[in-house]
C-alpha cells in the first residue's frame, strides 16, 4: 500500500533528472512492426499471408460497397445494372423498415418519440442527474408523451393500436420494457435465492430453474396463447404488454443468476460489519450488499442487457413487426428483394450502434466505479 511513501519524509526532487524509464515513450513505428510482426521467418510469412487476405477483403468491400455501389435511385433497374451494392434500397424502403406497419402519415410522431426516448435514456444514464427529484418527473413526462405519441387518440392525433406499432420504436419500447421490468425482478429473484427463508428460496429456485430450462419462444407462446386462457372472461391484457412481460421474465431469470454471482462474491465480513452496526436485513442489502454485488457483476449484466435488446425480435410470433421483422417483410417486394443483403446490413448496423453504445457506456460505468465516482 501507499503508507510508505506517505510516511517517508518528503524529499526534494533531484534537480537533474537521470535517464529514466518513460512508460509513455513512443516506440518508433518501424521498430514496433519489426518486434510484433516480423520476429521470425514463420511469423513474417503469416504476417504477409494475413495482410494479403485482409487487403483482398478490404478491396472487395471498397469495390462492392463504394466504387460500384448505387447510393440513390428510385429505379431498381439501375441497381440491376450495377455490379456493386444497392444502397438505394435503404433510401427507398427506410420508412417501412424503421417504422413497420405504423400508418405512413403518422411517422413524424415516431421520429419525435425516438428523440424523446433517446434523450430520456441518455439523460438517465448520466450520474450527474441520478437524483429521484429529477428522474421521476423526467420519466413521468417522457413516458406520458411517448404514450400519447404512440397511441394517439388525444390532442387530435389519430389512434394507432399496438398491433400496428412496429420497427425501431417497437424495438426500443420492448427493450426498455424488458430491462425496466426485468432488472427489479432479477434482483428480487437473486435475493430470494439466497434468502434465509425457505419459502422465498424455494419459490425463487423453482421460478429461475423452470424458466431457464425452457426456450424463450416457449415462454412467449405461453404468454401469448396460454396465459389468456387463465384470465376471467372479458378481461384482456394487451398482447404487447404480455410479450414484454414474457421477455422480461426470461431476461430476469438469467440476470438473477448473474446477480447471484455478484452476491456470492461479497465477503461475509461485509454482512458481519453491517450486523455489528445493527443494520437490518434490508438496510444491509440495499446499502451494503447490492451496490457492491451489482458493481461486481456489471460486465455480465451488460452482456445480458445487450442480449435482451436482440431478443426483442421475437415479437414476430405475435405478428408484430420490429425492425428486423419489418425489414424481412419489406424485402418481399419483388422489385427490391434482390437487395436483401444491403437491407440486412443496415439493420445490423442499427443493432450494432445500440449494442456498441451500451457496451461503451458499461465500460464508462466501470471506469467511474473504479475511480470511485459512483
Amino acid at each position: 500500500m501507499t503508507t510508505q511513501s506517505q510516511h517517508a519524509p518528503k524529499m526534494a526532487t533531484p534537480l537533474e533528472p537521470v535517464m529514466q524509464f518513460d512508460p509513455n515513450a513512443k516506440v518508433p513505428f518501424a521498430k514496433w512492426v519489426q518486434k510484433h510482426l516480423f520476429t521470425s521467418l514463420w511469423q513474417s510469412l503469416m504476417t504477409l499471408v494475413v495482410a494479403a487476405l485482409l487487403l483482398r477483403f478490404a478491396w472487395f468491400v471498397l469495390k462492392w460497397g463504394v466504387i460500384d455501389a448505387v447510393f440513390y435511385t428510385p429505379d431498381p433497374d439501375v441497381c440491376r445494372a450495377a455490379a456493386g451494392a444497392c444502397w438505394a434500397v435503404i433510401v427507398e424502403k427506410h420508412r417501412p423498415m424503421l417504422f413497420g406497419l405504423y400508418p405512413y402519415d403518422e411517422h413524424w410522431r415516431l421520429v419525435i418519440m425516438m428523440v424523446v426516448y433517446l434523450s430520456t435514456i441518455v439523460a438517465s444514464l448520466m450520474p450527474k442527474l441520478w437524483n429521484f427529484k429529477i428522474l421521476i418527473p423526467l420519466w413521468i413526462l417522457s413516458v406520458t408523451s411517448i404514450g400519447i405519441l404512440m397511441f394517439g387518440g388525444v390532442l387530435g392525433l389519430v389512434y394507432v393500436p399496438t398491433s400496428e406499432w412496429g420497427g425501431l420504436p417497437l424495438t426500443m419500447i420492448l427493450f426498455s420494457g424488458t430491462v425496466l421490468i426485468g432488472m427489479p425482478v432479477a434482483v428480487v429473484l437473486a435475493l430470494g435465492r439466497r434468502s434465509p427463508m425457505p419459502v422465498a428460496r424455494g419459490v425463487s429456485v423453482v421460478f429461475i430453474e423452470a424458466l431457464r430450462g425452457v426456450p424463450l419462444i416457449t415462454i412467449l407462446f405461453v404468454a401469448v396463447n396460454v396465459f389468456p386462457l387463465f384470465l376471467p372472461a372479458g378481461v384482456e391484457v394487451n398482447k404487447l404488454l404480455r410479450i414484454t412481460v414474457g421477455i422480461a421474465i426470461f431476461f430476469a431469470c438469467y440476470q438473477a443468476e448473474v446477480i447471484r454471482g455478484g452476491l456470492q462474491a461479497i465477503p461475509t465480513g461485509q454482512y458481519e460489519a453491517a450486523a455489528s452496526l445493527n443494520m437490518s436485513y434490508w438496510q444491509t442489502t440495499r446499502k451494503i450488499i447490492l451496490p457492491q454485488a451489482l458493481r461486481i457483476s456489471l460486465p455480465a449484466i451488460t452482456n445480458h442487457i445487450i442480449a435482451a435488446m436482440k431478443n426483442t425480435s421475437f415479437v414476430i410470433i405475435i405478428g408484430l413487426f420490429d425492425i428486423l421483422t419489418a425489414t424481412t417483410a419489406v424485402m418481399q417486394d419483388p422489385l427490391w428483394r434482390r437487395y436483401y443483403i444491403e437491407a440486412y446490413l443496415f439493420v445490423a448496423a442499427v443493432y450494432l450502434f445500440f449494442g456498441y453504445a451500451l457496451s461503451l457506456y458499461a465500460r464508462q460505468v466501470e471506469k467511474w466505479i473504479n475511480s470511485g465516482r459512483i
Partner: protein
Amino acid sequence: MSNIIAQTQSPSPSQRLDQEPMIKLRDVSKWYGHFQVLHDVSLDVRKGERVVICGPSGSGKSTLIRCINRLEEHQKGEIIVNGIEMTDNVKNIEKIRRNIGMVFQSFNLFPHLNVLDNLTIGPMLVRHMKKKDAEELAMQFLEKVRIPEQAQKYPLQLSGGQQQRVAIARSLCMQPEIMLFDEPTSALDPEMIKEVLDTMIELADSGMTMICVTHEMGFARTVADNVILMADGKTVESGTPEEFFGNPKNPRTRLFLEQILKH
C-alpha cells in the same frame, strides 16, 4: 475446573467489584457440527474493564467474542449484556448490539463508500441521525483516530493501519458502551501495528469497556485489567497482567507465553 478460574474475578479496581457485570457469560458452549468450540465458558466484564483474551489459533477466542454480539450463535449457557439476555429474539439482539461496537481482523470497511460515508451510514440508518449531525460526529471520531484528512478517500486507498483506525472510528460513531476487538492487528504490517494499538490504548484510557482478542502481549500488559488464556474452547487462565505474566498457574499458560515471547 476451567470455569472456576474464569469466574474468579481478578482484583480489579475496588469500585468495579461491587458493580453488576456489564457482560455476563455463564457456561457458554457452542458446537460446529460435532466439534465443540466452546466448553462452558464463563466470564464477567464490568463497566470500564479491559479484558484481553489470547490463546493459540482454534482455541475459540474469536468465536467467544463473536457470540457476545450474535455474529455466532451459542447453543448452551447464558450471555447477558446490560441485563438483557441474548436469545433468538430479534429485539433483544438489536438492543444488545446497540451497545456493542466491533472491530475485525480484516477491517471489513465498506469498499464502495468513502471513509466519511463508512462512518455516517450506521448513525444515519440505524440511529436516524441527520446527515449533517452524522458527519459532524464522524469527523469528531476521525480526529480522535487522527485521520480526518482521509475523510473523502476510499478504504482501499488507505494503508492497513489507517483502514483499521477508520474501522474503529466507524464503531465508535454508534457510541457503544462496549468495544470488541477481534485480532485487530493480526492483518497488519509490523510498522502499522503501533498506530492501531495507540488508538486502542487511548480508547482504553477514556474508560471504554473493551474485550480484545489479540496476541499483542505488550498491549495486554499495559492496558488489560484481566488477561485470559483460552485453549481448546476453555478458559485456562485468568488474572491480572502481573499474575498472568509473572506467575501463571497453569502449565499451558507457561507454554503459551514461552512460545509467544520467545521472539
